[in-house]
C-alpha cells in the first residue's frame, strides 16, 4: 500500500512538472508567431508619424503667479477642491540674500501668490508652474503593475481609470510629484493635457486662461506650431534632466534652484 502510494505520487509529480514545463515552453514557442498573425506593427508606425506629438512650453519670464491655471484645471477636470489635489500648480521660489531658498505654494497658487519674505531679504524671486511633464520614458508607466497608465500614440501620459487598481506605485515613481490619488474615483489622477479638449481642437484649460501667455501648447511635430517657434526662439530646459525622463514640458528661464 505504502509503496504504491509513493509511486503514484511520484508519477503525479512528474506529470504535473512536465505539464508545467511543457506549457511554458509551448507558450514561448507560440509567442513570437503572434506578430505574424497580426501584421499591424508596420502600419502603426507610419500612422504614428502622422499623429501630433503634444508638448508644452512654459515661459517663466512671463508667469506672474496668479494661479488662474491651477484654478481652471480644477474646474475643467473636476479635481477635488481641497488644497492638496492638483494636476497643475504654481510654486513661488524666493532666493534670500543668505542663499537659502524658500519654496511656497499655498493652495497651489490659486487666488494669486503672495510674497511672504520682506523685500530687503530677497535676492531674487520667481514663479514656476508645474504639471505632469509627459515624459517620453515615463517612470510611472514602468511602475504600473497592470498597464493602467500609458503613453498614448500622440505622446500624452494617460491613466485608464477603469483599469487602475489604485496601488499608487505610480505616485511614488513620479519624480515630479505630478500624480495624486483622487479621493472620489479612488484611482491615480494626473494632468492629461486636457486630452478631451486637445482632441476637439481646443487648448488645455491652463493654456486657455493664462493671462500673460506664459504657457504655450502645441504639436512638436508641426514645424509651424507656436510651441516649435517658442523652442527655437528661447533656450529651454526640462526639469530634472539627469533622470533621463525626456519630458515634453520645456521651461524657458529655469533657475538652477528649481527642484
Amino acid at each position, binding site marked *: 500500500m505504502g509503496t504504491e502510494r509513493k509511486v503514484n505520487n511520484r508519477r503525479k509529480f512528474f506529470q504535473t512538472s512536465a505539464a508545467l514545463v511543457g*506549457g511554458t515552453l509551448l507558450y514561448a514557442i507560440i509567442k513570437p508567431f503572434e506578430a505574424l498573425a497580426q501584421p499591424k506593427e508596420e502600419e502603426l508606425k507610419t500612422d504614428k508619424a502622422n499623429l501630433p506629438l503634444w508638448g508644452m512650453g512654459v515661459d517663466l519670464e512671463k508667469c506672474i503667479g496668479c494661479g488662474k491655471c491651477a484654478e481652471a484645471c480644477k474646474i475643467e477636470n473636476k479635481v477635488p477642491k481641497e488644497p492638496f489635489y492638483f494636476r497643475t500648480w504654481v510654486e513661488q521660489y*524666493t532666493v534670500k540674500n543668505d542663499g537659502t531658498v524658500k519654496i511656497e505654494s499655498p493652495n497651489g497658487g490659486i*487666488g494669486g501668490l503672495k510674497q511672504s519674505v520682506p*523685500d530687503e531679504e530677497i535676492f531674487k524671486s520667481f514663479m514656476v508652474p508645474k504639471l505632469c511633464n509627459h515624459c517620453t520614458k515615463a517612470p510611472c508607466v514602468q511602475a504600473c503593475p497592470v498597464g493602467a497608465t*500609458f503613453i498614448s500614440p500622440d505622446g500624452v501620459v494617460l491613466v485608464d481609470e477603469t483599469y487602475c487598481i489604485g496601488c499608487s506605485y505610480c505616485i511614488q515613481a513620479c519624480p515630479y510629484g505630478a500624480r495624486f490619488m483622487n479621493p472620489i474615483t479612488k484611482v491615480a489622477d494626473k494632468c492629461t493635457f486636457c*486630452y*478631451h479638449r486637445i482632441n476637439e481642437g481646443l487648448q488645455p484649460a491652463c493654456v486657455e486662461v493664462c*493671462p500673460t501667455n506664459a504657457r504655450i501648447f502645441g504639436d512638436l511635430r508641426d514645424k509651424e506650431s507656436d510651441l516649435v517657434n517658442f523652442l527655437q526662439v528661447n533656450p529651454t530646459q526640462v526639469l530634472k534632466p539627469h533622470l533621463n525622463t525626456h519630458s515634453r514640458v520645456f521651461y524657458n528661464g529655469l533657475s538652477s534652484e528649481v527642484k
Partner: protein
Amino acid sequence: MPKLIFRLFLTFVVFVGIFILIQQLLTPESFGEYGHYRANAIDDNKMSTSFYKGEAKCNECHQDIFDQKALDVHDAVRCESCHSPKIDASTDCKVSPPIVKGTIKFCAECHATNPARLKKGVPQLNFKEHYDKQNCIECHNPHAPWELKEK
C-alpha cells in the same frame, strides 16, 4: 502510443488550453492594440466635458466686447481667464452668467505687488494705497482698463 505517454500528452494539452482560456478571459477588450494598455482607454479619456469653451465660442455673442478688449492692454487676456465657467451651467452661459464682481481682491490676483512678478508688462499696485475699499471696476472698465469711467 503507450498509455503513459498519451496521458502525459493529454495533461499537457489540457493545461495549455486552460492557460490560454484564462488569459483570454482576464485580458480586457482592446488590450495590447497599441502597447501594454487598453486602447479603448484613449477614447475614455476623450469623453470628459469641456467646461472652458474657448474665446471663439464667446465671440459668437460678445463680439462688441471682444473688439473693445482688442484695443486696450487686456487684449491678450482671454475671456475665461476672468469669467471662469460656472460648473453647473457648463453648456449655456445664459442660464447662469459668469459674472465677475471686479473686487480689489480679484484684480489683485494678477496686479498685487510681488517681487516675483515681472516688472514691466503687468502693472503692479499696492492696493492699500490705491483707493482702498473701492472696487476696481468702479473706475476701470475691465475690458479696457485705461478707459476710466467718470465719477
